[in-house]
């Protein structure tokens, strides 16, 4: 099926690129209102404590202080959370991690608020605490969260696990450990809130989900949602970390109590200490295959440290466990996943959402198994790869757009081309090649995901798209404009996309789970198509022809020698605008809570990555010489956006693989970018190649589907396999810092010495 499109599939710069490059883009912190107050948050210094009393009078008396607020000042509900609302906006009686919010200070200046913060006296009764999720599972462990430390237990059950391992000729198992990871968006959390004369609340914020800002602010203030309007400002990245509107709630509470505009902006250390992280996992996994290299069974126990609050933990754990078998068909599966509470910074959504951790464990064991069976790692993968006939871990069969085998075949060629470079290894170095694969269901797994779009065609041949999936910098607004422009026969610059205003844009749920292209792309396309049908019908009546004989292009309709501008056509029909609404709700079935079986995603994205690494035997440092990221995206709506996303995801994954690890002493120990190390431009692989496989998704807009998390998913796995291949020892813990690899090399050296003696 090859259709020539005018707009989609063409590389074009993002509509926001120029304003950002010129420094003209308006971020929330660029806004300032007359009489605006600055809000600072007092946070718990203890990982677990009871609040006996809070004395605010000394702080209140400080110069320039307008208000000091605590939980008792909240007029509505004191709870928040993107999915599970188990975190108090301001802690009333208990703090559960060092960083939990206790009080707010509103000052005429930020400095005044900072000084007053230190004058608030909180009487804490310190309680026993637990940081380690495995210790938290022990019977006598301190209780980090009411209801017990097991926040969630999700399962996958299929086939007969005993029989499966019984058929296996080789079985491998290991424990894998992954780090707690920070999103490290370039713009920390920020919100500005003001009240108008009617007492309605306006919020300007950096957010992934403007409508959740609205919902939470309204609930906290006991207001109807219709009285809160949120405008997402240009947002400097989210990656899952800007779903829960804590900063928005703090600013809103101050604005509500004082009647003055209020701004909250976190400094980097506050963002690192208090805001959500990616779950660290401890994974025990066992994998078996028969003599022919067919996988027979997998047994996995996934323990995710969800921290003090469950907010998103259940959904992340569900994503992990339903993706436990990756891109492979495994007939017998037993997997148990737990979100475990500890007294640490809460973990929530982050690009990957539980998949990179599982992919690291599974792909590592696939390599181990290949070694046992005497097969090439890619050959073992090929023998078990999903196709249109085989179900994934949830029992779902994808009838189309599942090019795993094609990708693996391409990977084989690439690996062959890299092999000669292994012979050029300099002295003192070790080189290795690694492959990693991943699969990802697009959209929420635990429930169906719906998107709604409103498209309006104006008589001057321009169009407005209103849709609630905010753009965080990934380029979705540009792609939505392309979709509408294609359908309506317009140039992209005639289409304005408004996703950032709750008064205009319908709630589509959050920008998350790689869902925007697939869900909103369809909703926008369907709405635009409805408009097109109406216009063509009107034109057909004018031209006295069939609707399918009318062409619509550049704000005009034509049939043979007859033509009319849209303005003229609209005028003849007393129309000022044509507006249509459409929705997209993929037919899905959430996973069964006891078996994990269902049909949880409308479509899946697949990735195969290859790395050639060089390890310094002296220092343990890993250098990536070549990296190939192969991604399946359905059809590309905008190749420039696709390439940018894949570069970004791949480098984000490189941080997870090599250097990033949030450490806990009492609270977050490394709370600066000098101690929490994300990759720099100098850490990009010497050669980074992006390869896109286009295999149209029949249910996607113009064949497209989501892929943005997928570009991160297999990076940890790929790098671990490459490093393990280089040093001859299996890596089971990320990140692979020089020190960790040095330890593995030393242990290997000692083992070799022992064997010789």
């Amino acid at each position: 099926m090859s259709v020539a499109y005018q707009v989609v599939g063409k590389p074009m710069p993002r509509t926001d690129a120029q304003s950002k490059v010129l420094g003209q883009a308006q971020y929330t912190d660029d806004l300032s209102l007359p009489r605006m107050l600055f809000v600072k948050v007092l946070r718990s210094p203890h990982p677990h404590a009871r609040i006996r009393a809070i004395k605010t009078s000394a702080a209140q008396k400080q110069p320039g202080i307008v208000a000091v607020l605590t939980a008792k000042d909240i007029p509505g509900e004191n709870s928040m959370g993107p999915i599970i609302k188990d975190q108090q906006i301001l802690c009333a009686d208990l703090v559960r991690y060092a960083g939990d919010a206790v009080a707010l200070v509103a000052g005429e200046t930020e400095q005044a608020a900072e000084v007053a913060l230190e004058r608030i006296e909180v009487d804490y009764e310190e309680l026993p605490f637990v940081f380690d999720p495995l210790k938290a599972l022990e019977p006598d462990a301190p209780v980090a969260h009411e209801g017990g430390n097991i926040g969630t237990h999700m399962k996958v059950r299929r086939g007969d696990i005993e029989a499966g391992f019984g058929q296996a000729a080789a079985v491998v198992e290991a424990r894998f450990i992954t780090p707690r990871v920070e999103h490290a968006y370039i713009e920390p959390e920020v919100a500005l809130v003001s009240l108008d004369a009617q007492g309605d609340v306006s919020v300007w914020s950096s957010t992934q989900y403007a409508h959740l800002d609205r919902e939470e602010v309204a609930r906290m203030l006991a207001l109807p949602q219709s009285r809160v309007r949120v405008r997402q400002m240009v947002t400097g990245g989210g990656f899952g970390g800007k779903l829960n509107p804590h900063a928005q709630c703090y600013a809103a509470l101050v604005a509500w109590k004082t009647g003055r505009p209020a701004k909250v902006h976190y400094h980097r250390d506050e963002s690192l200490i208090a805001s959500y992280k990616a779950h660290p996992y401890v994974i025990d996994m066992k994998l078996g295959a028969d003599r022919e290299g067919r996988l027979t069974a997998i047994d996995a126990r996934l323990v995710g440290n969800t921290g003090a609050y469950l907010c998103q933990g259940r959904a992340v754990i569900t994503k992990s466990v339903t993706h436990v078998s990756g891109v492979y068909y495994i007939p017998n599966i037993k997997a148990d996943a737990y979100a475990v509470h500890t007294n640490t910074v809460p973990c929530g959504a982050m690009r990957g959402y539980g998949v990179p951790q599982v992919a690291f464990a599974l792909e590592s064991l696939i390599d181990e198994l290949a070694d046992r069976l005497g097969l090439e790692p890619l050959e073992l993968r090929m023998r078990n790869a999903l196709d249109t006939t085989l179900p994934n871990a949830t029992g779902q069969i994808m009838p189309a757009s599942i090019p795993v085998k094609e990708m693996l075949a391409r990977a084989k060629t690439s690996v062959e081309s890299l092999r000669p470079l292994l012979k050029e290894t300099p002295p003192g170095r070790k080189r290795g090649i690694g492959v990693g694969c991943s699969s990802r269901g697009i959209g929420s797994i635990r429930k169906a995901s719906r998107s709604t779009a409103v498209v309006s065609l104006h008589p001057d041949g321009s169009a407005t798209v209103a849709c609630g999936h905010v753009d965080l910098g990934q380029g979705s607004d540009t792609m939505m404009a392309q979709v509408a422009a294609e359908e309506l026969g317009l140039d992209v610059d005639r289409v304005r996309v408004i996703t950032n205003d709750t008064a205009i844009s319908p709630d589509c749920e959050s920008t998350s789970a790689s869902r925007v292209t697939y869900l909103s792309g369809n909703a926008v396309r369907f709405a635009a198509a409805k408009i097109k049908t109406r216009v063509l019908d009107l034109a057909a009546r004018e031209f006295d022809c069939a609707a399918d004989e009318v062409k619509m292009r550049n704000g005009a309709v034509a049939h043979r020698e007859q033509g009319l501008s849209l303005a003229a056509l609209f005028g003849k029909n007393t129309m000022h605008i044509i507006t249509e609404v459409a929705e997209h709700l993929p037919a899905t079935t959430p996973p069964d809570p006891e078996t994990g079986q269902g049909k949880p995603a409308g479509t899946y994205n697949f990735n195969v990555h290859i790395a050639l690494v060089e390890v310094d035997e002296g220092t343990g440092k890993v250098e990536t010489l070549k990296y190939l990221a192969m991604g399946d995206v359905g059809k590309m709506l905008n190749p420039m956006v696709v390439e940018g996303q894949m570069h970004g995801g791949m480098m984000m994954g490189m941080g997870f693989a090599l250097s990033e690890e949030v450490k806990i002493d009492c609270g977050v120990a490394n709370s600066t970018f000098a101690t929490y190390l994300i990759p720099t431009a100098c850490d990009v692989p010497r050669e980074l190649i992006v390869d896109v496989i286009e295999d149209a998704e029949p249910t996607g807009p113009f064949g497209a589907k989501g892929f943005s998390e997928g570009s991160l998913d297999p990076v940890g796995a790929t790098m671990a396999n490459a490093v393990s291949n280089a040093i001859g020892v299996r890596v089971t813990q990320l990140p692979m810092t020089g020190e960790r690899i040095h330890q593995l090399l030393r242990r290997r050296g000692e083992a070799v010495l022992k064997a010789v003696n």
Partner: protein
Amino acid sequence: MRFELLQPKNLSEALEMKKAYGERAKVLAGGTDLLVLLKDRKLKAEAVMSLRRLRELNFIRVEDGKGVRLGALVTHGDAAASPIIQGRFPDLAEACSQVGAVQIQNLATVGGNLCNASPAADAAPPLLLTDALLTLASATGERAVPIQDFFLGPRQTVLRADEILKDIFIPEVPGRRGATYLKLGRRQAMEIAIVGVGVAIHLNGSDQQIADCRIAMGSVAPIPLRARRGEQVLRSQTIKDELIEEAAEVAAEEASPISDVRGSRSYRLDMIRVLCRRAAREALARAQRKKQEGSK
């Protein structure tokens, strides 16, 4: 945060101000350390004295037959790019080019790096390899302090409250000297050293005969320091690989590293050995190349 901003127009004005303010005025050169400390409230300053207008302290100059003098306000970027430094003290150029990233190197000064007195200061080990003298100036006069006597502890130096570091004098080392500085970080830029090691080797005519050897280490003790016993292993010896190994072992024994977020004590000790061996071999090769170049 409020403070008085002092902006002297020349050195003598700066020294008068420093005399008047003493400890109360913090000196601002590139600002890459000071401003971070002030912002984080780790340092309180009544006054900040910016040296920005003191052009007279921004120079790199050869003093014939004696050595090279660097004004304290020379940036790491300028030092790394200077043909004078690259030609005579390539190890110093290497160190300066590994500080932070390009943006930091454009602002941060070599003098500031020394006065900040971080155990990890990259500029310190290469200077410790020489008999560098620091000129400390005050309104009442100047004194020259050998670099090895300058550091007292983390963020502590012998600088008096009324003094400013004026310049750094590096004596010319004639003959066949090779030197290098190796820095180990966890990523390729914007990183503080886990361990930094500089080695200088001076050959005595023959390619195999070491006249002098110097080893300096950063991030392994409260101050950047020389590994004097390690040096002794190689000094006046005929070069042998086992001796280099031994020197590295001894150097590690002289260090007292801590465990922190960048690396554990045991990793640091191992890395001193690794970097020391590598730096010694490279310094030796550089010294040996000098003859070949000279004999052409």
